[in-house]
């Protein structure tokens, strides 16, 4: 029987970069060069309109993408309302709407 300590430990997640396919990431970086400037500050996520209703997390999407973990992206991306707030707050001037649009083109399959 397990004891409930009131918190849990996240399962270990190791990403083996050697097995990752970065081609889509490169495609994205080529289409929107500013993608590389992200410092993962999270301002975009804090302001995001969709985030206020759901667990949608644009920074997480970007991080997953940078790690070559594309599986869940298509489904998640559909939650963005394209409102553009994230673009306005980003301190590094990432073109977030272009990034989202390009991601949709790459990852959202019919």
């Amino acid at each position: 029987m397990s004891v409930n300590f009131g918190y849990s430990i996240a399962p270990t997640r190791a990403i083996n970069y050697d097995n990752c396919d970065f081609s889509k990431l490169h495609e994205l970086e080529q289409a929107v060069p500013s993608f590389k400037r992200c410092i993962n500050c999270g301002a975009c996520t804090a302001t995001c309109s969709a985030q206020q209703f759901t667990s949608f997390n644009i920074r997480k999407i970007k991080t997953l993408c940078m790690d070559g973990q594309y599986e869940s992206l298509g489904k998640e991306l559909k939650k963005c309302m394209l409102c553009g707030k994230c673009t306005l707050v980003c301190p590094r001037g990432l073109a977030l709407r272009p990034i989202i649009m390009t991601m949709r083109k790459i990852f959202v399959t019919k």
Partner: protein
Amino acid sequence: METSNPYFSPFVLPFVLGAIFLLGICVWKFVRWFKHFDRLQRAIIRKNLLSWKIIPALWEMFREGILHVRIWRKNLMLGYMHSSIALGWFMLILVGFIESHMTPASSHPFWMAIFYRFFITTHQTFPGAQVLTFIMELMLIYVLSGILLAVVKKIYSRILGMKKTTKHILIDRFAKAFLWLIFPLRLLSEVLAASRFQNGGFFTGFLGDLIPPSNEYFLLLSWTLYSCALCGFFVTLPFSRYMHIFSELLLIYFRKMGVREKSERTGYTMYELNACSRCGMCIDNCPLNKELGHNDVQSVYFLRNLRQKKSPIRVADDCLMCQRCASDCPVNIDLMAIRQQERNKHEMDTADNYGYLDTVQPFNAIGRVGYFGGCMSHLTPGVPEAMKAIFEAAGQKYWYMDEDRTMCCGRPLLQQGFNRQAADLRRKLTEMINKSKITMLITSCPICYQSFKKEYKLRIPVIHHTEYIAMLLKTGRIKVRKDDVRTVYHDPCELGRGCGIYKEPREVLKATTHLVKAKQEKEDSLCCGINLGDTLLDIDQQTLIRNAAFQNLMYKHPDQIATACPMCKKAFAHASEFPVKDIAEIVRENLK
């Protein structure tokens, strides 16, 4: 053939065949396009076909298809150039037709009007003959002066007030070459005829007297070349930009009947595409051209691509949807609707994605007005704060719909062609609004405003907060004092060109501050750059566009910028050392 006919010579053949070809192709195209009108559009035409609407339609066809009044208003020289060729040529045909039919002759073949001076070699004595000759001469001079201006424009467009002119494709160049040849050749032919037969008017007769009587060989050669130039123009016309001559007339007619663009391409769109004369007036003021040097995305090229059945997605997407070109277009083509149609085509994913919005609980706000700040106003908290203060000062009960979390109105999605997704958001918001029973919806964001007004089918009035404040001032529900800060007003694209709201913001500002002018304003105002229409631009490019708009506002050295859009406010806030305020904030500061 009728060799016995005294009014026939083989040189008229190129002209006659060319004209028949032109007529055939035009009729074929027009009928085919008309068949592609959708049911609603056809019903509108059937209903109005013979109604009184035909009178304003005919008047506008003459005014814009022939006189080109809108071009005159934009630029006198260009107006002169376009109308000289259109009106001059129209008159040459019309008066020539009258002249040839007044002339006593055994027959009046239709080419007689075109080659009149070749066949009628004596001065006519029927009543009014001299007047007609005089008009014909005058019109020839008029057209020739227009052609001369067009040549000057080709060499040095700045004289005519255009920085960039359209880069034309081969067929357009051919057609233009033929057009430019027609009238000098006509002049030459008539002068040669005048020198030989003494049948010239004041101009051709004068020139004819200067040269020795021409021999028959030169005379025939010149008239043949004139006929061939006409033929060349007629044959290239349906495939070149000059198709606009006829398409524009029909377009004006259909538009006056009440036909409008749909969300998909219809036959009506084909009339619009072909009505573009590629005049290039949409190039100079497009921010993407001026500030970024993207010189193949402007409406003229976009429409041409569509006509040539190629439409790179990049061109449809690389546009701020700022509508500046639409306000510059003398043909009033619905440029934004056509671009939107192309964007609608690449709708990628149609699944319902916004199920999470169903967590929003309905709210009962009976007897109050609704206030919708919009996503962007959450980044400019001063604007909703000011609106709250104004509501309170006016004693107005309100419901701030999106105070703690905000749902997008759907327009940004719509503009990128995600129609189904946008409809999801609209459905949810409409449900919220209907259940709340508010009596009126006030928005702070012009994008939401346009969206609620045009896309939603709400049963209550929708107004922008500038309209609302203007109303409060007029009815005396709030009182303000006037300060003397020199303030310039920036017209947001979506509020100004998008919804035609220019008056109310200025009324409010005149009541509260000292309003000064921007260099280009109202319909001619410049986009702030961060508008949501373009998803291809990065921040540096947006900044360049913004800087240009900022410079435009600095024209009279104001001490404060006022705007009525949270996004424009955000854009200029980074550029300006002095305050950038929303009109609501200025009013709030000056509340008595």
